[in-house]
């Protein structure tokens, strides 16, 4: 008997909110990659000498670049938070028959985030 197959169309990720959020998460990697490329460019310009580096800094200060950095920051935050929330799925901590609630496992990420951010802020702002 003839069976009917329904192939997935190219817009499948628009059909449900969860799929859309997934695609958004995957898309964030583009911004993170672009940011890294920009960072590498900075290192390269630094190797070319002071003038080249200053020109690079000036480029960074343009409105377009500032806008890009804001978007990249939001993308990085979104991406990171999704990873934070994956941890309880991956890491199962058990005490006998009981499993440590996922919120606590994920919470460790958030605490570590705050602590590391505080340390970095302290290093940068102390002098």
């Amino acid at each position: 008997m003839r069976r009917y197959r329904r192939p997935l169309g190219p817009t499948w990720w628009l059909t449900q909110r969860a799929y859309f959020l997934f695609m958004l998460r995957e898309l964030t990697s583009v911004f993170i990659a672009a940011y890294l490329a920009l960072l590498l460019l900075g290192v390269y310009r630094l190797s070319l000498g002071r003038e080249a580096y200053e020109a690079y800094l000036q480029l960074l200060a343009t409105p377009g670049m500032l806008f890009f950095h804001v978007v990249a920051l939001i993308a990085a935050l979104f991406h990171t938070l999704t990873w934070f929330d994956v941890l309880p799925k991956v890491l199962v901590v058990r005490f006998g028959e009981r499993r440590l609630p996922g919120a606590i496992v994920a919470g460790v990420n958030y605490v570590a985030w705050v602590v590391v951010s505080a340390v970095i802020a302290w290093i940068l702002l102390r002098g």
Partner: protein
Amino acid sequence: MPEPTMTLEILRYRPERDRAPSIQPYEIPYRADWVVLDAINYVKDNLDGTLSYRWSCRMGVCGSCGMMINGVAKLSCATFLKDYYPAPVRVEPLAHFPVERDLVIVMDDFMEKLGRIRPWIIRGDEQPLSEGEYRQTPAQLATYKQFSMCINCMLCYSACPVYGLEPGFLGPAAIALAQRYNLDSRDQGSGQRALILTSQHGIWDCTLVGECTSVCPAQVDPAGAIQQAKLASTLDWYFSVLLPWG
């Protein structure tokens, strides 16, 4: 007062006469305590006896009544009309599977995959009968119990776009079942299953969309099972590289 009614839009496919499926609307009485399956049964009994679909238990344990309800994979016996009324409800066969007839899908692929991961207790060394049964503590049972609750409803496959795009993907329920046996203290077959889990279209096809877990009616958390299998497989690999005897 006339009885309230609502519309059920059901996908029909009769391979002997239809080239492609079409949507057929049915006007059904609305009852607040009806689930979608009740409404489909009403159609079959009163409006159109040719409608084909699967169901059995009517209580969320047999796993045979899975359908796409307004585009979301659900058990039709556990989905109430009142959550949609008065808007029409669209009922389609489970996504990503070939359609046999109307709401009936072909599940051969799923059955083959379930068998492929060797879902039974594999022993390297069989202990003699005189030593009695393989015993297990409640804590050992707890490590895999969640993954053993699967009712094979295939909702997770219909929710998984990776499976939709790549039908070769081993898929959520099969991987969760493999993980169920791998975590069982009586089992010694994880080496055999690793070959299947890490093969092409095994666990690494998963991009963690996470919808399998959202739609699972048995709280199996197949997405969690897959990520845990990825972690276990990665650790295995590191140990085999770092420890010459590993």
